[in-house]
């Protein structure tokens, strides 16, 4: 019997081997590509150009239009890059949807991925503070927003406090909703000028 165990131990343990080396993390090249196009310095610089020579309400309206358009572009690029550079984490979501034919994984997880890619590629923090993610609601906070800070530096604190930049995030979320086809109510319960952080939520209809 003792020989049996000696022989057994010589055999390699039948470890599961993944068919390909999986990566569960975000592709760093993708994050950098997004950062090049939409880093807060660049976006705030473009804002200053957009409101150049304008004052008061005129400047505010110009900023709102600018951020709305920019938010759409930001999210379109995010979705494009996210889909071009998938990782095993999102593959697991999509495989489950494909295999079961059930859509329950798309909300919140596909939307959560787009949100996380969008902010990790443009903000200074290393993880997005997700405050809720369940089948009914996805919400997150943006503490110490880098874009808000840059707007304050380049266009003045008072201009930043008008929160015209919220159109950037809300426009991006609306674009994502349109792309995914998931019916959600988008809301912003808190904003940086008053609360010190922005909070966004998407509640499934």
């Amino acid at each position, binding site marked *: 019997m003792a020989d049996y165990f000696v022989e057994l131990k010589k055999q390699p343990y039948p*470890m*599961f081997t*993944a068919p390909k080396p*999986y990566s*569960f*993390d*975000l592709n*760093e090249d993708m*994050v950098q590509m997004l950062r090049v196009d939409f880093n807060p310095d660049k976006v705030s610089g473009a804002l200053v150009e957009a409101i150049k020579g304008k004052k008061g309400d005129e400047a505010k309206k110009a900023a709102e239009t600018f951020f709305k358009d920019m938010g759409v572009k930001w999210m379109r690029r995010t979705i494009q890059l996210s889909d071009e550079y998938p990782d*095993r*984490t*999102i593959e*697991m*979501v999509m495989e*489950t949807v494909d295999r*079961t034919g*059930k859509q*329950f*994984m798309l909300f*919140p*997880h596909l939307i*959560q*991925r787009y949100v*996380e*890619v969008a902010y*990790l590629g443009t903000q200074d923090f*290393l*993880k*997005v*503070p*997700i*405050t*809720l*993610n*369940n*089948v*009914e*609601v996805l919400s997150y906070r943006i503490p110490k927003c880098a874009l808000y800070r840059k707007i304050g530096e380049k266009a003045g604190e008072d201009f930043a406090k008008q929160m015209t930049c919220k159109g950037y995030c809300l426009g991006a979320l609306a674009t994502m909703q349109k792309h995914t086809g998931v019916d959600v109510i988008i809301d912003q319960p808190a904003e940086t000028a008053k609360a010190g952080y922005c909070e966004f939520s998407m509640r499934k209809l």
Partner: protein
Amino acid sequence: MCFLCEQFGDPKQDSGLWYLNSGNYARNMYKLRAPGEGFKGADAGLETGARSGPSIADLINAAEKDDYAEYTKIQKAMLARGQGSQVVPLKDADKVLELSSPIGLIACICRKDARAIDERNELEYTCMGMGVGMLKWERWPERYKGGVKFVNVDEAKEWNHEMDRRGFVHILMLFGAPFIGGFCQCDYPDCGALRNAVDFGVGPIKGHYVAVVNYEKCNGCGICAQRCQWGALKFEVTNEKANIDLFKCYGCGLCETGCPRGAITLLDRSSVPAVAEVWR
């Protein structure tokens, strides 16, 4: 109020119960690592913290030596660092399952340890993983040898009710406090958490309820006594009825859901002064 509610409960949500605070189920899918950043280890939270310091093996060694003083010292040290798990009855379990996504049915690691049982498919799974960490289960192929079956809320509830019918206790687990990442389906002696509680007094804390018997309805069938995993329920020979020791009751509610005559009900622990603060 238990120490988990004090730390992780939200008074605005469902009486401040920590496991009904939806924020405790939220977690990011991704993070970027700062250059040179390593793992946090025991600093990551209660669950990982529980792995450092004295262990059950130390308790057993002390017991073998009949060293009661050492045993008590180790037990106190283990209790002081907290255990991130609590017993939850079925009625609260249904609410819990609405707060987390995704939900994956998985093999039980305790039964693999204790019984050498490999649960290899969804018909055999007896454990539940919750939260976005489950999307990365392939990182630990040996742990999840049988794979993961992702289910929606209704399927999860149905599965959980079946587990309850079979006689499993529902225990919620913290995975890096305050994140709740596991919903174990436990029985004695297979389950490590439950065994630690019954044998060594250092397992999950008791639930927020205690069970009481209505003697008018109880016919002494004894089904509840078969379902109790805690040694709290016995068949009283004198009056031929079920009898519950409230100090041993963990409030899992298995006796309540198993009683064919509806003779057992769960009371809020705080409404029974003698056991209102008895969590171990």
